[in-house]
Every structure is written in structure tokens, then in C-alpha cells.
């Protein structure tokens, strides 16, 4: 692999635009990636604050701090912000930064569209959060129907701000679709000579497949909210039985989007873990091609399992069985991945820097979330678990200790390449241990209260659930404030005054084109494509 930056080809090497224009008009994949990551991080604290309001209210039974109406707005906006404002933009930010570096491309394929897809996001979330601000100022209600916005809660009974929400979802959908098109075009057209598909790093592969998922399902979400919009404002009756429609149809359309969406939120994390585990095991990844095929199988299966979210709507037994078996089938390719990661570590010479710690915690805790998912896939069991805290525990294990831990691991793994400085390893380890202990204190008791029948999205609960809820709330506050350690560590690394300089390779076991570049990665990289042997 040769990765010499031949500077004479580019007279303006590292010439950056300055001031606010550098960011507003940026077409540079690294700057846009940085903006995505900061946007996601800010939204993470906004969504996290809402979560802490929820956990404060649930600390003990009875109503303490907020009214049920506001509680509903908290759960709704927490879900929407975390899904669309944190996990997805963080992944797109990582793709922007890393995909060109990993395949030896000078930039993204469509840099102007890249700029547009980022700058739609602040508008989209500005609208959504504006509805909450107005609600707090006593003007109407913010969206209060849960992040799944089921009709008729969001149509007939939706507050006025639902139309803000619809426009906001349209904008974030357009943003995601443009981001996905850009990533696919980059991967198809801009790979360095010799970088065949089956030589691409797994992170690039998982994003390639994720981008196709986004293109396939974000338009369906746009269709669903468009139908809501016309039902609400233009007299159509897609979801209204009064006009011959069917509210259950909404759930089908929503989950046709929603189930691939949950894989959109985990596949890039699979990719990140597949980069980190080999690096710190000092081995090649075990079963590269099976990783690729497993990812593709998961993506395919994600399209034929959506109705497992709807077992209790009254489906024929044959349909329930089909969706149950199809859902269980997903455990096979996912199991392939987990075993490949474990096999990669097997007999490796492991070291436990912060990214590796997060990666190992990911493998362990995501698998717990996967197992509870398997429990939920069983139709008769799901009738018991449906809409309880067991479901909340399940999807927080896969999204927090899954998707989010993948993002944490990625930040620690690549921030030396981004900034040229090593992060503070002690703080990183502190962040890891405080987070990992508190996240389990937070979410593990939810399994118990869920199995005992505590419903989700309700601000009050029976006395019998009091202890476990108090424990979960304590965990929530520790976990929430632990993230300030990450913020401090990132700022300290960027300033670089009291940190070590990072080497080009950064990690002893690192392999791949991104590690052949200097640290920090220059503003323009791979202007002459490297050759991959």
C-alpha cells in the first residue's frame, strides 16, 4: 500500500476557507463529518435531558414533577431526537469522515449535496424543538403520540404542532436520502485502484448496505407522514375508518419503514466493531466474507419482519407464524457476526484501550439485547411483553449499549486521526467504566418491571415497581452525567495542549488506508489515489 501524499499535484494543499463560511458553504467531507458529529453530540445532550426528566418523574410512583400531558411529549421527543437526531447523524458523520479515507478517495462523490444534506438537519430539528419550547411556554402541545406516531393519535387527536413534526420528518428524510445517495456514489465510483469490493473495510461495507436500506425505506416514511398530512389537513381518509381507511394500515406502513430503520441504526456499529476488534487483537478479522454476507442477509430479512411489532393487532395465526419465524431467522446472521468477533479475539494479543473496551462491551451487551429481541419475537410471549418496560429494556440495550457504544468506540478509535492528538486514556477508561456500570443499573431492572407488567409511556405506576424504578433512575442520572466526561475529553483532545501527539498509525495493530495518512488527516487527502495491492 502506498499512501504518499504527493503535494505537488495540489498547490492549495491544506488551504482552508476561514470564518463561518468555511462551515456554511463547506464541501469538504471532513468538515461536514465534523459538523454532523457535533450536531449529533448536541442533540445527544438535548435528548438525554428529556430522558432525565422522564427518569426523575419515574423515580417514585405518583406524579411529582410533570403532568402526564408533558410526560407524553417528553417520551415522544426523546425517542425522535435520539433516533433521528443522534444515532443517524452520528453515523453519517462517521461515514463522511472515514469512508473516503478508507477507500482512498479525495472527497465524497457529490460534495455540494453533502453540504445540503447536513444543513437541512438544524432546520428539521429546530422545528421539532421549537414545538417543545412553545409547549413549555404554554402555547399548545408538542408532539405527544410516541416516536411511532400511530394514527389516530397523530391524525385525529394530534396537537397542532403535528404539522411541524411532519415537515420536520420530511426534511430529515430528505437529508438522510441525500446522505445515503452520496455514500453509495462515493463507494461505487471513488474507490482507489485495486480497492475491490471484497477488499473494502467492513465499516465501508456495512455503510454501503445501510445506505441502500435508507434509500429503500426513508421514502416510505415520507409517504406515511404525507398521508398523515393529507388526512389532517386535506380531507383524505387513509387512516380514518370514518372515511373507509384503516388505522392499522398506518402501523403497516410505519413498520415497513421502521424495521429496516432499526438495522440502519445498528449495521454501521457492526462495521465499527469489525474495525476495532481486529486492531486491538492484532489479527485479521475472522471470516471477512461471511461478515459481508451476514450483513446483506440482515438487510434483506429486515424487510420481511415488520409485523412482529404488531402481533397484538389481531392477525391471522399464519401471518403471526410467518413473521415470528422470519424474525427468529435474523438471529442466524447476527450470531455469525458475534461469533466472528469472538473468533477474531481468540488467541489474539489483546490490549484494552478505550475503543476496545467499548467494543467488547458492545459485543456482550448488544447480545443481551439480541436475546431479549428473540424472546419478543415469540408470538405468545410477545402478547405478554407487548408495550411493557421489557420492550423498553430490549431496545435500549440494542440502541444504547449497541448503536451508541459503537459510536463512542468509533470516536475514541479515530479521534487521534481527526485531531492529531491522543485522547486522555485515563478519562476514556473512566468514561467507559462509569457508563457501563450505570447503563446496566439503568436498563437491567427494566426487564424485571416489564415482565411484572409495568406499561411503557405512563408517568405513574403501581407501588410494586417502586424499588426497581428508583434504581433505574439513579443509573440514568449517573449515565447522563458520565457523558460530560466524554465531552471534556473530546474538547481536551481537540485543544491538544495537555495531550500527546498521535502518530500516523496511532494504534500498533491498525491496518487500512486511513492510518497511512498523517495525523491529523490533512484538509485534502488522497488527491492522488493510493494503490491498493
Amino acid at each position, binding site marked *: 500500500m502506498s499512501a504518499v501524499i504527493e503535494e505537488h499535484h495540489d498547490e492549495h494543499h491544506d488551504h482552508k476557507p476561514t470564518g463561518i463560511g468555511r462551515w456554511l458553504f463547506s464541501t469538504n467531507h471532513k468538515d461536514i463529518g465534523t459538523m454532523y458529529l457535533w450536531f449529533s453530540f448536541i442533540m445527544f445532550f438535548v435528548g438525554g435531558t428529556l430522558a432525565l426528566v422522564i427518569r426523575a418523574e419515574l423515580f417514585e410512583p405518583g406524579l411529582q414533577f410533570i403532568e402526564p400531558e408533558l410526560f407524553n411529549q417528553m417520551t415522544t421527543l426523546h425517542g425522535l431526537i435520539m433516533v433521528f437526531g443522534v444515532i443517524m447523524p452520528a453515523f453519517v458523520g462517521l461515514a463522511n469522515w472515514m469512508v473516503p479515507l478508507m477507500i482512498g478517495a479525495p472527497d465524497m462523490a457529490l460534495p455540494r449535496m453533502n453540504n445540503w444534506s447536513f444543513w437541512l438537519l438544524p432546520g428539521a430539528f429546530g422545528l421539532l424543538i421549537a414545538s417543545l419550547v412553545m409547549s413549555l411556554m404554554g402555547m399548545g402541545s408538542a408532539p405527544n403520540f410516541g416516536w411511532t406516531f400511530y394514527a389516530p393519535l397523530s391524525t385525529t387527536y394530534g396537537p397542532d404542532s403535528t404539522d411541524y413534526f411532519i415537515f420536520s420528518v420530511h426534511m430529515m428524510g430528505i437529508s438522510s436520502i441525500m446522505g445515503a445517495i452520496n455514500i453509495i456514489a462515493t463507494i*461505487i465510483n471513488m474507490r482507489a485502484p485495486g480497492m475491490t469490493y471484497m477488499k473494502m473495510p467492513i465499516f465501508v461495507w456495512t455503510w454501503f448496505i445501510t445506505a441502500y436500506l435508507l434509500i429503500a425505506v426513508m421514502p416510505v416514511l415520507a409517504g406515511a407522514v404525507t398521508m398523515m398530512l393529507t388526512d389532517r389537513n386535506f380531507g383524505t381518509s387513509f387512516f380514518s375508518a370514518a372515511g373507509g381507511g384503516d388505522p392499522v394500515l398506518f402501523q403497516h406502513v410505519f413498520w415497513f419503514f421502521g424495521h429496516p430503520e432499526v438495522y440502519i441504526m445498528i449495521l454501521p456499529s457492526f462495521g465499527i466493531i469489525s474495525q476495532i476488534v481486529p486492531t486491538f487483537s492484532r489479527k485479521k478479522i475472522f471470516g471477512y466474507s461471511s461478515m459481508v454476507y451476514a450483513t446483506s442477509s440482515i438487510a434483506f430479512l429486515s424487510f420481511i419482519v415488520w409485523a412482529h411489532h404488531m402481533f397484538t393487532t389481531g392477525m391471522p395465526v399464519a401471518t403471526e407464524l410467518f413473521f415470528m419465524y422470519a424474525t427468529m431467522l435474523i438471529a442466524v446472521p447476527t450470531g455469525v457476526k458475534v461469533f466472528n468477533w469472538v473468533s477474531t479475539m481468540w488467541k489474539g494479543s489483546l490490549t484494552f484501550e478505550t475503543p476496545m473496551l467499548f467494543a467488547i462491551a458492545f459485543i456482550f451487551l448488544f447480545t443481551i439485547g439480541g436475546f431479549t429481541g428473540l424472546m419478543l419475537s415469540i408470538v405468545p410471549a410477545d402478547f405478554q411483553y407487548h408495550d411493557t418496560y421489557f420492550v423498553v429494556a430490549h431496545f435500549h440495550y440494542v440502541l444504547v449499549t449497541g448503536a451508541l457504544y459503537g459510536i463512542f468506540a468509533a470516536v475514541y478509535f479515530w479521534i487521534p486521526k481527526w485531531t492529531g492528538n491522543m485522547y486522555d486514556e485515563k478519562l476514556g477508561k473512566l468514561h467507559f467504566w462509569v457508563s457501563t456500570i450505570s447503563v446496566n443499573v439503568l436498563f437491567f431492572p427494566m426487564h424485571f418491571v416489564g415482565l411484572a407488567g409495568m406499561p411503557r409511556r405512563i408517568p405513574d405506576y403501581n407501588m410494586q415497581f417502586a424499588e426497581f424504578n428508583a434504581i433505574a433512575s439513579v443509573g440514568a442520572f449517573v449515565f447522563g452525567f458520565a457523558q460530560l466526561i466524554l465531552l471534556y475529553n473530546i474538547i481536551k483532545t481537540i485543544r491538544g495542549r495537555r495531550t500527546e501527539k498521535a502518530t500516523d498509525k496511532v494504534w500498533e495493530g491498525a491496518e487500512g488506508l486511513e492510518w497511512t495518512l498523517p495525523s491529523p488527516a490533512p484538509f485534502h487527502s488522497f488527491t492522488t489515489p493510493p494503490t491498493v495491492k
Partner: protein
Amino acid sequence: MNNNSDGNKKVLRNLLFVVVGMFGFGFALVPLYDVFCDLTGLNGKTGEQYVSDAPMQIDTSREIKVEFLANLNDGMPWEFKPLTYSVKVHPGEATRVEYVARNKTNRDIVGQAIPSVTPGQAAAHFQKTECFCFTEQVLKAGEEKIMPVIFIVDPSIDEDVHEISLSYTFFIKPGSEDAKVKTDNMAMKARPSVALSTPLTQH
């Protein structure tokens, strides 16, 4: 990079086709869902008016209990109930029952009844030769109306089905009434359990 920009445009164009196609697919799910429900009787929706070429074979060896329910959608200020709560029928035999509705407001209201059959697999075998749900019903202020349903349970219905529930929900036809109804508290309190003046007849 010039050689790439053509390729990028091609990828962009192809993927935009996919995006537009999938947006359309989202809407195509609406009729697809209806077709799927028609075939499976999934959502308990019954068919259109049944016209028989030849009378059905009456299967006197079986007896099925059919129960009748009446519901009013939110904001529908009528009173509405079946005059018969349940009948026992042989598959294949045509049976007539009646519902009664009364508009107790001082406004004319157009309503539409939507039928639903439980269990779902019975829906495809529940044929109606006459039903007030086939058309909109207009009730003048204070008017009361007896409305018939004639139905046949198809003898091909599954052996396991011993009971069928037929439920009607009356909706205000969208646009036929202004917002006054929503603020009319008396009207909002109307529920099918309120006894009508018409006496019940046992079939």
C-alpha cells in the same frame, strides 16, 4: 475526477428513481393492504352487496350463533342499536334483522355505517344481500328509522366457527356536519346503551 462525475450522475439518477419508486410504493401499500385484507378477511371488512345466481344449499346440520353490536364513532350524536341481539341460523339460509337509529339533535345528519365481522376468517363467508351500510343514511332532525340487514352465512364457512359477531359503527359523513356537533355536549353523551323508545323484539 472528470471521469467520475459522469458515473456519479448515473448513480445519482438511478438512486433517485429508487427513491421516487419507494415513495410510490408507500402509497401502493394502501391498495395492496386492502386487497390483502379482502383475500384474508383480515380486518373483518365484509364484501359488497351479495347477489346470488342460485339459492345456497341450506346446511341444517349446523347452527351458528350470530350476535349484533352497534357502536357510534366519536362525535356522532345519534342513538343506534340492534332490535335483535342474537339469532341462531343455519348456514345458507337468508335471515333478516333490524337495527334502529334516531337522530336526537335538531339538525339533519348524514351517517355512514361501517360493518366489521369477528372472527376475521368468517368475514369472507358473511354475505349481505341487503344492508343499510351499502348507502349513506340521512336522518332529519329528530327522525327515527328502522334499518334492515339481510344476510346469509356461506355454507363453505369453516367448521370451527360457531359464533359470529357483526358490529356496525356509525360515522358522521365527513363534511356533512359543521363543528357544532363537537361542542354539543348533549350530543356527545349519546351512547348506544341509552334505551330507545322502540321495544325490543326477540327474533
